[in-house]
C-alpha cells in the first residue's frame, strides 16, 4: 500500500502540504512529491482538488486469514488476582465478538489460577483457556510469550486484546513480533468494519494532538493494547456458563531467562480516579496548592475525588497519580468539574468519556468552554464555594 502523486495532474497548489499531518510531502519544482515520512494515512488523497494523489492498495499480499476466528482477551493476573483491566477488556471484547458473531475467550496464565476462570465467564467470556505451570507463577516475558504463542498457533484467534499495563505493554509487542503480526498500542476505541471484518483501532498520536485509526488487514491475529479505565466492564452475570479449557503448553526452566528475585509493593493512597463517578479537577488557574482544599470540599459534597491537569501536577500541587490527560489517566465520571483548567487538547483526551463536563474559568476565551457542556465564566474561588453551598442545601 502506498500513496503516489500523478505528476501530470498535479497543479502545484500545495494544499496537500498544508493538510499532511506528517510533513511527508515536498515540492520538487512545481510538483508535489511524497517523501519517506509518509504513513499512507490518505489525508492528502482526500485533500487534493485535482485527484492527483492516489492510493495504491495492489501491493498487499492476501494471506488466507479465514482460518482465524474468535476474540481473545489476555486475563492478566498478579499474585492470583485478575487485574481490573481484564474485566474491562471482556466488556469490550463481548461487543466485538457479537458484531463478528464469534466466541469471546479469556486467556489465563499462571500457577494454580484455574479458580479464577469462573469469574471471567461471569464477566462475559464464553471460554477460558487456562495455562498453568509453576514456571509461570510470576510474569516473565520469555515464559508468557512462549506459552501464548503456542496457544495462538493451536486455536488461531482473529483478535487478541491486552491491557496496557506494565506487563501487557511488555508482553504484547514481543508476542506480536513472534507470531508475525501487527500491534496497535493504547487504543481508545475499537470497532469492527462490517465490510472487511477488520478491527478499526483508534488511538491518539502526536501526544494526543491527532487521532489515528489503524488497521491490520493482512495479518492475524490483530492485536491491540487498551489502557486501564478506558473500556466499560460487562455487567456481571453469575448465571453465565462457559467452557474451561486446560492447555498443556511446553515450557522448561531454560526458556525463562529472567528471574524475579523480589517484589516490592509501594503503598498508595488507594484512590484510583479512573473509576471515580464525580471528579473535581484543578489546573494552573488554581494558583496555589491550597486551592485543592477547596476542590476537595466540593468533591466531598458530591461524593467524588479530586484530580489535576498536567500544569497542577508539574507545579507540585497534586500527585502524578491524580493527573488527568494524555500523559495521565483517562477518566469516565458522570460529572467532571474543571476548575481553572484551560483545556489543552492533551487534557481533553483524558476526559472524552466524561458524561458531563462543567468548566469554571476566568478567561471567557479559554479553550475548555468550546467542549464543556456547561461553562461558568468567573473566579473559581468565588464559584466553587457557591456550588458547595448549593449542593449541601439540596441534600
Amino acid at each position, binding site marked *: 500500500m502506498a500513496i503516489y502523486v500523478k505528476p501530470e495532474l498535479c497543479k502545484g497548489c500545495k494544499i496537500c502540504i498544508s493538510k499532511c*499531518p506528517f510533513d511527508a510531502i515536498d515540492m520538487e519544482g512545481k510538483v508535489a512529491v511524497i517523501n*519517506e515520512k509518509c504513513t*499512507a494515512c490518505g489525508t492528502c488523497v482526500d485533500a487534493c482538488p485535482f485527484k492527483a494523489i492516489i492510493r495504491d492498495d495492489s501491493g498487499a499480499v492476501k494471506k488466507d486469514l479465514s482460518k482465524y476466528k474468535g476474540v481473545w482477551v489476555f486475563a492478566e493476573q498478579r499474585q492470583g488476582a485478575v487485574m481490573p483491566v481484564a474485566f474491562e477488556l471482556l466488556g469490550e471484547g463481548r461487543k466485538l465478538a457479537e458484531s463478528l458473531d464469534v466466541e469471546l475467550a479469556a486467556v489465563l496464565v499462571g500457577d494454580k489460577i484455574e479458580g479464577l476462570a469462573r469469574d471471567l465467564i461471569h464477566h462475559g467470556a464464553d471460554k477460558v483457556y487456562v495455562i498453568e505451570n509453576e514456571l509461570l507463577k510470576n510474569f516473565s516475558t520469555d515464559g508468557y510469550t512462549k506459552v501464548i504463542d503456542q496457544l495462538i498457533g493451536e486455536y488461531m484467534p482473529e483478535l487478541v486484546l491486552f491491557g496496557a499495563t506494565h506487563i501487557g*505493554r511488555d508482553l504484547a509487542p514481543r508476542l506480536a*513480533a513472534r507470531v508475525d503480526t501487527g*500491534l496497535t498500542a493504547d487504543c481508545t476505541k475499537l470497532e469492527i468494519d462490517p465490510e472487511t471484518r477488520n478491527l478499526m483501532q483508534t488511538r491518539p498520536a502526536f501526544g494526543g494532538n*491527532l487521532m489515528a485509526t489503524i488497521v491490520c488487514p493482512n495479518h492475524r491475529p490483530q492485536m491491540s493494547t487498551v489502557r486501564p479505565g478506558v473500556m466499560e466492564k460487562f455487567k456481571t452475570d453469575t448465571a453465565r456458563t462457559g467452557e474451561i479449557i486446560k492447555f498443556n503448553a511446553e515450557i522448561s526452566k531454560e526458556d525463562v*531467562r529472567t528471574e524475579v528475585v523480589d517484589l516490592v509493593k509501594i503503598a498508595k493512597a488507594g484512590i484510583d480516579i479512573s473509576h471515580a463517578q464525580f471528579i473535581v479537577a484543578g489546573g494552573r488557574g488554581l494558583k496555589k496548592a491550597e486551592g485543592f482544599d477547596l476542590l476537595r470540599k466540593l468533591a466531598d459534597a458530591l461524593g467524588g475525588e479530586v484530580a489535576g491537569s498536567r500544569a497542577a501536577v508539574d507545579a507540585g500541587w497534586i500527585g502524578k497519580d491524580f493527573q488527568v490527560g494524555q500523559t495521565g489517566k483517562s477518566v469516565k465520571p458522570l460529572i467532571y468539574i474543571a476548575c481553572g483548567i484551560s483545556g489543552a487538547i492533551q487534557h481533553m483526551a483524558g476526559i472524552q468519556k466524561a458524561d458531563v463536563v462543567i468548566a469554571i474559568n476566568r478567561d471567557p476565551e479559554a479553550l475548555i468552554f468550546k467542549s464543556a457542556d456547561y461553562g461558568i*465564566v468567573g473566579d473559581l474561588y468565588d464559584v466553587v464555594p457557591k456550588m458547595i453551598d448549593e449542593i449541601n442545601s439540596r441534600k
Partner: protein
Amino acid sequence: MKVIVCVKQVPDTNEVRIDPVKGTLIREGVPSIMNPDDKNALEAALALKDKDSSVHVTVLTMGPPQAAEVLEECIAMGADEAFLLSDRAFGGADTWATSNTIAAAIRKIGDYDIIFAGRQAIDGDTAQVGPQIAERLGIAQVTYVQKIEAEGNEITVQRALEDGYEVIKANTPVLLTAIETLNHPRYMTVWGIVEACRNKETKVWGINDIDVDPKDVGLKASPTQVKKTFTPSPKGKGVVFAGDAKEAVDTILDELKAKHLI
C-alpha cells in the same frame, strides 16, 4: 563490555498545536529533540562507562538524514560511536518493520552485551520497538527499568510496576528499556561537542549496508496501516454562563438533577 543504545529524534509534542480553522497540525517552530526516555537510556550506558572506561557505547538511530543531529548530541554527551540508518526504503515503517531494520543493523554491529532503549517515544507512545528488537535478536528483555546494577555478565534491575517494582536478575546479552526515574541525564560537554564535530563521524547505513530483505522494511512491510487521521472532535458546544455565578450554579444543578446525575 559493549553497549548499544537505540535513540530516536522526535518532534517536541508538547509544542505541537492544532490550527483551529484548518484542523491540521502546526509544525512550524516545533523543535526536534532527543526522545526523553532515550536520554535516560543513554545516561545509563554512560554511567557504566564512568565506572569502567573499557565500556564502549554505540548509539544507533533510524530516521531521515537530519536525525544525525541526535547522534551528534549523544556523542557530545559521551558516546563513542554512532550509526544512522537512513534510506527512503525505511520510511513509513511501523514497529514491526522498524524493529526488523534496527535488529539487522545491530547484527551487523555484531558484538554487544547490553542494548538500551527508551521505554517509548513521545511521538508514538507505543513502547513496542524495544521488545520487538529483543525478539528479533532472540535475547531476553526487561522493560520499565528504574535501577541497574551490572556485575560481570549478571545484571540486576528494578522493573517498575504500577504499584511498586520487581527486582529481576538476568544475564547478558539483554535488552533493557529505560524510564524517566532511572537517572538524570548529563549535559553535553564542550569537549564532547568538539569530538562530535571533529573526530567522531556518524556512519550512515542505507538498505544495501545491512543484511535485510528489501521486502521486510518500510511502509510496505508494516502489518499495521494508518487508515485515517483526524483531530479529536470536541463535544458539542454547551452553555456558557457569564453573568451571576449563583444563578449559573442553580441552573446547572437543576439540569443535572433533572438528568438524575446528582
